[in-house]
């Protein structure tokens, strides 16, 4: 898609970002002690802290990713909303109180306080680093997605911009995103999401029709069009789909053949030429031939319908009885060029509102994939290294619990809104097929540039906050858990700080590269992976240390290593990675499933128990 930035949007965006940076700087100067740095002194009111908690958690993934995935796949995107919130139940009911009673900030600290083992520190440090990196990728991808429609910049510029700003912030000031900034972002995100949903419902639904070409005859190889003067210049077959190229007004267009209706339906297509240039619907991006889509063709069996404003339930009810034009993608090689065709897939609304478009549950493998995803989301939240830190920013356990409740309330409200923002994008003709992450911002743009700019700025600032928090967490892991434990002499304070800064720059650099490599993937899907790795590597260790007295240091170390390595192996060798990251056309990946948790979480638990039992015996027999 080609986007024209608007002056108003750009001004609002930069004013907002700069004020966020100034507020952060103001508060970061006030928190000079290390306790203040991590816990804001323990004096924050629980309600402020609760919204800040939500601001921390509702990162790019929630706003951009979930809405985008619902916009493209319907209900399957909503699974993430359900799973992310369910994850909070694990954190609240099982992990948070006991961890706070131990008086520790992170799971690495909690593990270490019990065992005082160098091995645990180092493996926990590595695990923190890897999970943070996995969580950084979607944030960076999200940042890149945001700047494109708003500022007209290409994706990679956005990624590098975020990377550099964050590296500068962290390396000079050592800022962790402050509670008040997160509070501001959290509340703005929720308020403007409510506004957006009200606008979606107020506008209601309407149908759209696409161009077709009538076919006179087709005998299995030759096709004859009704319109004179239009001839077929090329033909491709992919599975049971047949595509024809027709030249119209001197420009190539590609059409997919609908045998039942004897018509050709318009497609959108991208050609990656052998020389590296890319054509969108046969022309450079600037020609704007590649347009936004996402429409209803019929509502209640009728065309040319406009519903007017609808209530929340009625809105869903209308979509249930409508036909949604979704777009499927085929990628094939056309000589030296790579051709990606998006063709229409009219889907009954009934099917869009149940599981199946992204995560089908037909074969055994499908089912495993689905269960695995739901498992990772459920167990991932509590195991993310940066999420529980905020639990300690209030004075008493009761206040900590209350802020978690406020967080759950606001996050839950937001997640219900995602369904309406996602379905709104799906049916409002705002989708950019090259990047599902833009669905919600583009939906906002279809209403008002100002709301679009504010929402983008809030989301962008959230990315900045999350990224700097993650980079602080990972550089902390490098300094305290890795370098600090490996070097025998122990490090001076000054040296620790400089290693920390160096680590921040390196992690930031890696995040920039990964953010560019993973461009175009749905950020929520990527976060799903981060959750899977966290749940596999960290959760068994943390749960068993809190609740099983038989746990040994060696058991913890081996369970972290097994969880980490097995989860990453499955992800890196999965079909999605082969297709979307390595860009291999038509290569079958060795791993049968995309989501590792169903295998790796139990594996990590079993490893911990078995190794603990064995090492315990040895210790006793000694």
């Amino acid at each position, binding site marked *: 898609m080609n986007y024209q930035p608007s002056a108003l949007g750009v001004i609002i965006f930069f004013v907002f970002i700069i004020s966020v940076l100034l507020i952060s700087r103001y508060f970061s100067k006030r928190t000079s002690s*290390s*306790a203040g740095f*991590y*816990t804001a*002194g*323990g*004096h924050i009111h629980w309600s402020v802290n609760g919204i800040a908690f939500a601001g921390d958690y509702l990162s790019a993934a929630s706003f951009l990713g979930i809405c985008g995935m619902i916009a493209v796949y319907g*209900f399957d995107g*909503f*699974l993430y909303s*359900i799973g992310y*919130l*369910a994850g*909070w*139940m*694990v954190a*609240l*009911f*099982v992990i948070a*109180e006991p961890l*706070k009673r131990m*008086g*520790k900030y*992170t799971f*690495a*600290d909690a593990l*270490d*306080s019990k065992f005082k083992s160098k091995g645990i520190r180092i493996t926990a440090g590595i695990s923190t680093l890897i999970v943070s990196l996995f969580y950084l990728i979607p944030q960076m991808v999200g940042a890149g997605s945001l700047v494109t429609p708003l500022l007209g910049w290409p994706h990679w510029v956005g990624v590098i911009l975020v990377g550099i700003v964050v590296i500068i912030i962290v390396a000079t000031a050592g800022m962790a995103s402050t509670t008040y900034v997160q509070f501001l972002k959290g509340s703005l995100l929720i308020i403007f999401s409510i506004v957006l949903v009200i606008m979606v419902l107020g506008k209601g639904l309407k149908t759209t029709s696409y161009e077709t070409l009538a076919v006179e005859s087709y005998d299995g190889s030759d096709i004859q069009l009704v319109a004179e003067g239009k001839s077929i210049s090329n033909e491709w077959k992919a599975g049971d789909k047949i595509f024809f190229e027709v030249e119209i007004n001197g420009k190539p267009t590609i059409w997919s053949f609908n045998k039942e209706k004897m018509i050709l339906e318009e497609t959108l297509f991208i050609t990656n030429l052998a020389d590296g240039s890319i054509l969108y619907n046969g022309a450079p991006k600037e020609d704007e031939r590649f347009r936004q889509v996402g429409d209803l063709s019929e509502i209640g069996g009728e065309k040319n319908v406009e519903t007017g404003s609808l209530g929340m*339930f009625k809105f*869903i*009810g209308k979509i*249930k009885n409508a036909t949604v034009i979704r777009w499927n993608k085929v990628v094939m090689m056309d000589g030296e060029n790579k051709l990606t065709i998006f063709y229409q897939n009219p889907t009954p609304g*009934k099917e869009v*509102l*149940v*599981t*199946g478009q992204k995560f089908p*549950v037909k074969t055994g493998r499908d*089912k495993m994939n*689905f*269960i695995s995803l*739901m498992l990772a989301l*459920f167990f991932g939240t509590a195991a993310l290294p940066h999420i529980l830190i905020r639990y*300690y920013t209030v*004075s*008493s*356990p*009761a*206040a900590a*619990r*209350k802020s*978690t*409740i406020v967080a*759950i309330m606001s996050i*839950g409200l937001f997640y*219900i809104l995602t*369904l309406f923002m996602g379905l709104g994008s799906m049916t409002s003709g705002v989708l950019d097929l090259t990047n599902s992450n833009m669905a919600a911002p583009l939906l906002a743009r279809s209403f008002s540039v100002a709301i679009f700019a504010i929402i983008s700025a809030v989301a962008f600032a959230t990315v900045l906050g999350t990224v700097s928090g993650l980079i602080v967490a990972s550089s*902390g*892991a490098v300094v305290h*858990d890795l370098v600090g434990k490996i070097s025998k002499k122990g490090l001076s304070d000054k040296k620790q700080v400089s290693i920390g800064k160096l680590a921040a720059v390196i992690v930031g650099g890696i995040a920039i590269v990964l953010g560019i490599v993973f461009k175009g993937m749905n950020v929520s899907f990527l976060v799903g992976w981060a959750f899977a790795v966290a749940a596999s590597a960290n959760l068994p260790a943390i749960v068993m240390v809190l609740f099983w007295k038989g746990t040994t240091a060696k058991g913890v170390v081996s369970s972290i290593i097994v969880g980490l390595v097995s989860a990453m192996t499955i992800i890196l060798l999965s079909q999605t990675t082969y297709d979307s990251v390595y860009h291999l056309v038509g290569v079958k990946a060795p791993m049968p499933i995309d989501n590792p948790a169903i295998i790796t979480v139990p594996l990590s638990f079993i490893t911990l128990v078995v190794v603990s039992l064995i090492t315990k015996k040895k210790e006793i027999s000694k």
Partner: protein
Amino acid sequence: MLHGKATKNEVDHASKIKTKIGMWMFLLYTLVYAGFIIVTVVKPELMGTDIGYLNLAIVYGMGLIVFALILALIYNALCSKFEKKLNIIDETSVGGAE
């Protein structure tokens, strides 16, 4: 990361009962969550059943979110009640941070 305690916690006499409540609520929520997964995997067509304007998938999905909110509120109320009841002597010092 830091070593040492984040805040000075008073002795909490309610911690045992709070852990127990947490476990039961976790179990309850896990069962309902698992129910969603099981129905989707075993009988996906059931999820398409109409419920007014909505269908079962959406009602169950939103229900899981709302149920989480309700459980969280009950959990907080119960924990607060037990903290109040069992920690009366410590009441004067509650809320005192470092």
